[in-house]
């Protein structure tokens, strides 16, 4: 019981600290002198590191989902619905969540490790001494970069996954390129796209905040750096699902279904 309370306490302390960190992010975000160059640099890195992986997984997801869904639809004689069904489930759920998970893995751990080692080797202190606000230079740029890049990546992943679906449909049947895309766009509405886009902003923000929080508050020693990186991935991935759950409730309430 005592152990349980101790664990709980630690958890609540961490939640409180992350909340404080997020508040500090907004305070620093609105302070003057934006580090625009560093922001662009970070955007580039987020894209550069995740693009191949996001592209490949998206393609495979689209392909596999189509192949797997076909038998069920054939049973109901509804195989002409295949493009519509696949694209809706990709855009609404699968592609944003998979993209976010990949970014949580790649970016979250990368930031945790990078900032962690900067903390441990006193690079963050050195920045502060040389008159650059390290929070603004390192944290604000990274969090804004993930927040902006995740929706872009997710959209790209949508496109690639639906293309994968096209190949999947054509393995067994034949649907022309033109017909396929007509069916896809008939099925998709803004009500599918916009909630999923908004959701990815929050995914990106959460991944950035958690990765940065873990790295920035890294404990001394190389062990601390490793721990920051792994726990950044775990917490960020978990948060992606929690946000997804909340988002689906909200879109449901607002009648986007």
């Amino acid at each position, binding site marked *: 019981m005592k152990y349980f309370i101790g664990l709980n306490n630690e958890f609540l302390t961490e939640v409180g600290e992350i909340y404080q960190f997020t508040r500090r992010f907004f305070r620093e975000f609105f302070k003057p002198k934006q580090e625009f160059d560093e922001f662009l640099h970070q955007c580039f890195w987020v894209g550069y590191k995740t693009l191949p992986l996001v592209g490949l997984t998206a393609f495979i997801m689209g392909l596999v989902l189509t192949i797997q869904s076909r038998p069920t639809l054939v049973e109901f004689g509804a195989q002409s619905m295949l493009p519509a069904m696949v694209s809706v489930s990709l855009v609404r759920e699968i592609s944003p969540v998979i993209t976010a998970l990949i970014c949580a893995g790649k970016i979250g751990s990368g930031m945790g490790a990078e900032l962690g080692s*900067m903390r441990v080797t*006193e*690079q963050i202190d*050195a*920045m502060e*001494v*040389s*008159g650059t606000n390290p929070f603004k230079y390192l944290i604000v740029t990274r969090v804004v970069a993930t927040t902006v890049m995740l929706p872009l990546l997710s959209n790209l992943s949508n496109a690639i996954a639906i293309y994968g679906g096209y190949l999947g449909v054509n393995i067994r049947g034949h649907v022309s390129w033109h017909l396929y895309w007509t069916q896809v766009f008939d099925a998709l509405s803004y009500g599918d796209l916009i909630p999923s886009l908004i959701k990815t902003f929050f995914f990106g923000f959460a991944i950035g905040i958690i990765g940065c929080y873990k790295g920035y508050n890294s404990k001394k020693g190389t062990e601390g750096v490793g721990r920051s990186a792994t726990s950044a991935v775990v917490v960020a991935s978990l948060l992606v699902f929690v946000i997804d759950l909340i988002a689906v409730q909200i879109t449901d309430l607002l009648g986007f279904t």
Partner: protein
Amino acid sequence: MDPVVKVENVNKSFGDNHVLRNFSLELEPGENLVILGKSGSGKSVLIKCIINLMPADTGKIIVLDQSIQDMDQEELDILRAKVGFLFQSNALYDSMTVRENLEFPLRRHWSKEERERGSEMAVLEALEDVGLAHTIDMMPAELSGGMRKRIALARTLILKPTIILYDEPTTGLDPVTAREISNLMIEVQKKYNASSIIISHDMNCINITSNRVIMLIEGRCYANDTFNNLKKSTDPKIREFFA
């Protein structure tokens, strides 16, 4: 002349760990003051308090006639430009080249035009001071430990500080390189007419650089004398360091 750094009755603790207890010191202009103490005695904490990287719990810290605890961020940044800090772990930015590392402190303290006109010159001058002008486009990871230390020193010097704080400048280096760095520190000090606080356990380095030595034991200033006098001391706690 007034001391350039004045630390008065400073206390600093982390939880139950009382690191500094009523610690005081004064650094006179042009002086090289060495702080000697066991590992974990709070030497790094002390000099971090001096530039307010860590706030002291109680006591007064006055740098260049300004109380460092009562400053806003703006004033603090301006003061910090006059205080060079060489970190124990060098703290070179891994993701930047040597040139970018040295240019980094200029971002805040020079205007854009000044940087376009003068940064190349300033970087080269600082690198020549430490004899490593050829490494300008290398990454820190490509350099040896001693070179990294010298690059870190060059970065510390780029804003031409009047006070330099060295945290173990020769630890982990071979005796030859260590002596080179010590001599470099003396040269630099003459060139920039700076005052410095040097943390060190390296007797050679202390011998070369120090005008005065303070021993930090159990958070207090245990002894305050010249190196040669301390060497002759019969006090067992002091003798430990010279054994």
